[in-house]
């Protein structure tokens, strides 16, 4: 479990993090959301001990983060790169050794991962001779080579083609199953809804929202209803959006406009036979935008 307690960080007069508290549970995927400049990178850098916080604590498995604990963290920065002129093998061995593996451990793990991704034949290739997707695989291996307990991924899917993105997703899920705690920083909401168990939203250095995805969604009242009608008997109100219409059946999107779903259902029944009636929950993206706008105006 990774705990962030009352974390503060300022750069000169600019507040990057204000009294931030987070609990990132073990063996789960935690989504860190927020627009650019919200303080995500600062938080990640503090967890990685690249920079020091002004006050507050980062606690991993009950221990304050220190040089030894850092070995348990794997970090994939957003804009990635490897040494272009260095071979795949040498590069992976170097990163493993820097992360504290012994020479023999490093060899064994690099061999394992290269075989796992079926890329052993790339061993002696230089990074500059690899395609972008290939290089990203190598970078992912470099991130997880020392079997970190905590994996920090900053926009992991950016720049991946669909095939490699699917592969990466499977790897992330597999690592999660293996007990790795994963912190995923992103503003791509579709990956958040697909992968994350919990999320926290940061905006202007402050946490504005956190919880499990289901919990957050239920906290936001649905604003619209998906409904289908057959045997249409009269003209529909202009506010109701017709999404599709087949022979004798229309799919509608109805704004609630302050009514309860039951009131709307009663009204709907006047227009024909109700086949389906379902709340449409806001997507994480809508919640995200709504929250950012709300706190931005506050």
């Amino acid at each position, binding site marked *: 479990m990774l705990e962030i307690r009352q974390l503060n960080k300022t750069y000169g007069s600019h507040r990057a993090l204000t009294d931030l508290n987070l609990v990132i549970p073990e063996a789960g995927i935690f989504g860190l959301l927020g627009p650019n400049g919200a303080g995500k990178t600062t938080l990640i850098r503090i967890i990685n*001990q690249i920079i020091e916080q*002004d006050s507050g604590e980062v606690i991993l498995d009950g221990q304050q983060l220190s040089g030894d604990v*850092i070995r348990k963290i794997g970090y994939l920065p957003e804009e990635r790169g490897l*040494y272009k002129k260095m071979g795949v093998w040498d590069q992976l061995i170097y990163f493993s050794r*820097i992360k504290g593996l012994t020479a023999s451990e490093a060899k064994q793990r690099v061999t394992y991962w290269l075989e796992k991704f079926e890329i052993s034949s790339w061993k002696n290739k230089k990074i500059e001779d690899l395609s972008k997707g290939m290089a990203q695989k190598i970078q992912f291996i470099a*991130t997880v080579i020392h079997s970190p307990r905590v994996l920090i991924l900053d926009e992991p899917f950016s720049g991946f083609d669909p095939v490699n993105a699917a592969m990466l997703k499977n790897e992330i899920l597999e690592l999660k199953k293996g007990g790795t705690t994963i912190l995923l920083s992103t503003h791509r909401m579709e990956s958040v809804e697909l992968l994350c168990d919990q999320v926290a939203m940061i905006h202007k250095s402050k946490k504005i929202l956190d919880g499990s995805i289901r919990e957050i969604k239920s906290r936001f009242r649905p604003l619209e209803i998906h409904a289908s009608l057959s045997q249409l008997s009269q003209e529909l109100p202009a506010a109701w959006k017709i999404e599709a219409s087949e022979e004798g059946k229309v799919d509608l999107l109805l704004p609630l406009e302050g009514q309860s779903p039951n009131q709307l259902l009663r009204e709907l029944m006047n227009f024909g036979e109700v086949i389906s009636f379902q709340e449409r929950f806001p997507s994480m993206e809508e919640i995200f935008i709504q929250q950012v706008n709300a706190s931005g105006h506050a």
Partner: protein
Amino acid sequence: MHKVFLVIQREYLARVKKKSFLVATLLTPLIFPAIMAVFVWIAVEEKENQSLRVIEVVDETGLFFMESSDQYAFSSSVENLEEAKALVNSGERYGALYIPKMELSAPQGIQFYGLENPSTSLIGYLEGALKRKIEDQKLYAKGIDPKVLKDIRTEVTVQALTLGDAGEETVTDATVNYALGFLSGILIYLFIFIYGNQIMQGVIEEKSTRIVEILVSSLKPFQLMMGKIVGVGAVGLTQFLIWVLLVGTLSSLVMGVLGMQMPQQQAMEMANPELIEATPDTEELGAILQVIDGIDFVSLVAAFVFYFLGGYLLYGALFAAVGAAVDAPSDAQQFMLPITIPLLVGYMGLFVFVLQDPSSSTSFWLSIIPLTSPIAMMGRISYGVPFWELALSMCLLVLGFFGTTWLAAKIYRIGILMHGTKPSYKTIWKWVKSTN
């Protein structure tokens, strides 16, 4: 510490394994002997292929008899200038020299006609020959035999010796000292620039690819910076050693093939006194060897290595700081000034002050201040420097190294994490002052 070693190892191997390193290391020393060989070859060829140039002399005074040489022959087959010009035009003569009737006290109106621009060496040759003739004529006019004058001319050389504390005498020679100071100063200057740039490029690469963020979570920025500086320095030393070996062997090979003598061979001949007496030329060589013998090479080499490394480390940290402050090599230019200026001052100072007068006060200060001392002190050292000055300069260089490294580490630590905005000197100063 063990991780710093990993960084050093990577920096070293990544560079040494590159093909470009191999090419540069092997080709650079080949260039010098190759250029030497080409020049010698051209000179030899030219001498062999050059046909004798015949010059028609029209001498209206009747006083000048021009002596022919390997390159030029003189004839006087025609009576007047017009005929001589015709000979030149027809190609029978290379040129025509016209000496009109004139007062020997004020020779005027001597002309040379040719189809092409005569070389300065030909004009110089003609002027020299005519001057000697006129002077001889004047001597005769005053009743002096030129041969007497020749006998009077005397060659004088002064041997310079320095007195040691214990009263021992060492033969010195400004030329040898000049060459040694010149060479070692330039080498240090080039080394700092070439490898300092490599440090900077390396830092920029790690910064722009974010590799640095992965690395500094495992080791301190300072360790990473020092690892890079030491690793790149080791590459430079390796290259330098290979060059010394290659240049040595290749130069002696080339010289051997072209029939010249290398110091080793001369030294061997020196050991044989009969040869010294046999060839008067070797007497001069003996003097040079005596001078070289008088230089304390162990301390000279030790000082060279010290200033070589000290200067590199001092500036290396600054190059790393510049690399950390910018996003791309093209942005680095604006921050290069504080590095280039003191280096250039040291470099220019070496020629203008130090090598001219090694013990002047300007030379003293240039060789004491850490930013210029690595280059300037090497210009003084072969002339002999008082111990306290050397000790002061070395101590200050070590202090200077700590100073620039401390400064650079502060800039580096923050700079490597800054992206997007181009920093100004003001922001960099803020980084230096910030405590965290």
